[in-house]
């Protein structure tokens, strides 16, 4: 027993000592530490940037889950804990960080030429007149549609002015009501869903809302749902889609496939269970992952809400790089400037081809990779289209609490969809719930 105890002690001592002289923190001079999420997208893209920039500076990219990164970033910002030099922040969250932690992020107004980036992205990283972001991937939206499934007859049945064929339809700027009309014709003919939607997820809602040039808040930054034309219209469209049932073989059939999570939303795209998806450009990688569907997909502009000021351009998601004020600001800015602002070694072409990422640098859109036709999408220059559309996305101040608003609305939504709440009751309830989340 004595031997066992002694051995135990020695083991513990060795382990403890070896742990104590373990690796030092990564945050020292001559290194740039970057926090980001998604190894297949953001991390992969930053590795490309690292490869282009060369070995003069050691660049360490730390991979975390998105939610984990946000938790850790909040903890570190509020305790002066370990922070990276550069961090990726989702656009919807940017306002919250910039307002909650003044002085923690480096002001890049003078070091980065923001006029080279699309205005909607620059607006997101602007706080109190100063620009903090290096704009990164665009969440520019579009409507992906199956040209082998939707027919001229489906389009003609919708009675859209000046549009009688599928070819005219994909070039047209349609409204959501016209979208629903084509969907009804399609489902009535095939029995299949026209789109998939998770009515508990605010993704499509935010896409519609962004295109109306409004957001969840009023000019003072306070939540305003009731009386907010954008929110009211997006709610109306959600309900129109929910209620748009048609008769197929004698049974009432919905034009949507109800999704409950990411997988049930994405899977129908590969197997032909749905004919369209309207979302951010980042879905293109998933759409293209079913190679058997090559040549069957086309992309058209996002449907428009039926109110004054609404456009056929919108955005869902997207993120930007931010430099921490306590980090190695000069090195970090030099790196981001060379790659993201000056497009060193045609960086944007590489990430478009490798990752399907549309950047926010305006001049990148005229390069060869962007103007090339993509055989998967019926040999059209969809990347050029997306780049042009991204410059036309309405610039929105997302405020500080997008997800809180989103959650409150989606929680109250079922009662509105099934008709037990009126529009104003639903929006009032959601507004009260949202306000209670942030007070």
């Amino acid at each position, binding site marked *: 027993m004595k031997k066992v105890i002694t051995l135990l002690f020695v083991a513990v001592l060795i*382990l*403890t000592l070896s742990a104590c002289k373990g690796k030092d923190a990564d945050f020292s001079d001559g290194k740039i530490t970057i926090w980001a999420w998604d190894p297949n997208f953001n991390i992969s893209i930053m590795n490309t940037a690292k490869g282009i920039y060369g070995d003069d500076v050691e660049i360490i990219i730390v991979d975390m*889950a998105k939610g984990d990164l946000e938790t850790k970033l909040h903890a570190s910002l509020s305790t002066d804990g370990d922070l990276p030099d550069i961090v990726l922040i989702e656009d919807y969250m940017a306002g919250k960080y910039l307002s909650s932690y003044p002085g923690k992020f480096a002001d890049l107004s003078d070091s980065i030429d923001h006029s080279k980036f699309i205005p909607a992205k620059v607006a997101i990283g602007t706080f109190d007149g100063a620009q903090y972001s290096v704009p990164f991937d665009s969440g520019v939206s579009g409507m992906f549609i199956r040209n082998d499934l939707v027919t001229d007859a489906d389009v003609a049945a919708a009675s859209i002015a000046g549009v009688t064929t599928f070819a005219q339809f994909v070039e047209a700027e349609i409204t959501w009501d016209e979208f629903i009309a084509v969907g009804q014709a399609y489902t009535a003919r095939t029995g299949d869903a026209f789109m998939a939607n998770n009515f508990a997820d605010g993704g499509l809602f935010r896409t519609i809302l962004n295109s109306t040039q409004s957001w969840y808040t009023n000019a003072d930054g306070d939540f305003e749902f009731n009386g907010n034309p954008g929110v009211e219209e997006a709610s109306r469209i959600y309900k129109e889609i929910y209620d748009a049932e048609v008769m197929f073989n004698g049974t009432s059939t919905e034009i949507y496939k109800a999704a409950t999570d990411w997988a049930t939303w994405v899977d129908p795209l590969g197997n032909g269970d749905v004919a369209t998806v309207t979302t951010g450009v980042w879905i293109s990688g998933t759409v293209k992952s079913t190679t058997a569907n090559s040549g069957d997909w086309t992309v058209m502009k996002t449907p428009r809400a039926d109110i004054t000021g609404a456009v056929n351009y919108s955005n869902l998601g997207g993120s930007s790089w931010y430099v921490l004020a306590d980090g190695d600001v000069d090195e970090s800015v030099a790196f981001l400037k060379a790659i993201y602002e000056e497009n060193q070694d045609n960086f944007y072409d590489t990430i478009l081809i490798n990752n399907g990422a549309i950047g926010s640098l305006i001049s990148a859109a005229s390069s060869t990779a962007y103007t090339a036709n993509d055989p998967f999408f019926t040999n059209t220059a969809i990347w050029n289209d997306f780049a042009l559309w991204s410059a036309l996305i309405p610039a929105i101040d997302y405020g500080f609490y997008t997800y809180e608003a989103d959650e409150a609305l989606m929680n109250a939504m079922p009662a509105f969809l099934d008709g037990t709440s009126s529009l104003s009751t639903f929006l009032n309830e959601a507004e009260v719930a949202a306000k209670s989340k942030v007070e």
Partner: protein
Amino acid sequence: MRKPNKIVKIIKLSFTYMFLSIVSFICVFPFYWMLAGGTSTSNEVSSGNISIGSNLVENYRILVEQSDYLRAFGNSAFVAILTTILALFISSLAAYGFEIFKSKRKSKVYGVLLLTMMVPFAALMIPLYKVVIYLELSNKLISVVLPAVATVFLIFFFKQSFIKFPREIIQSARIDGANEFRIFRSIVFPAMKPTYAAAAILTFTASWNNFLWPLITLSSNELQTLPLKISILSSSYTPHYGVILLSIVIATLPSIIVFFSLQKYFVAGLTGAVK
């Protein structure tokens, strides 16, 4: 009269077994699904396929090549083993002191300690992180170990089983000239093995599955533990469900091995080591 009784008994038994079978199925099925998913492709998992697939080797290759999984496994093993050894040693010594020695303020101190069990970790996290930064221990594996080596729960757990330990043995050892540490080491420890085994299982599993604290205190890829890696795998725009489930299967194995190897002590430890 005997026959109907027998029939009633059989019916009762079959209901019992039926109920137990259903409950067992509900308990075991998620584990089976996890195992089956770990051998399947992402499409098979999301289409609800529950049979054993043929993609195990490919899933393992992707897991090891793309996520530095084995290093994370090593980090988790280091943290969990070191935490278990130190926590058992320190907490059992503390419990021994609280139970065996006489002191007026002992119960008050113990009461305060027990009260701290009511504070959730989320409330302690930020102050604890400040301490770790002050001591320049952040982003080191030892920063995950140290806060877990003295836990009030373990002290309480050991103290409860020391209550039953016969004081006469300790007193006679003292008369024989043994010092307190010798008594603890040579007399108390050997007799309390089942308690240690039970505490080891609880501590190891808690440390192995710990997520929030390593997330806050570890900041480099090389130091990430398994729960952090699994979280990263799950959060990609294009998650590979087969690989995620395989990573969870592998991450579950050490806890299962530790449990089964110490199982015979476990029940005895929970019900009291000294009879």
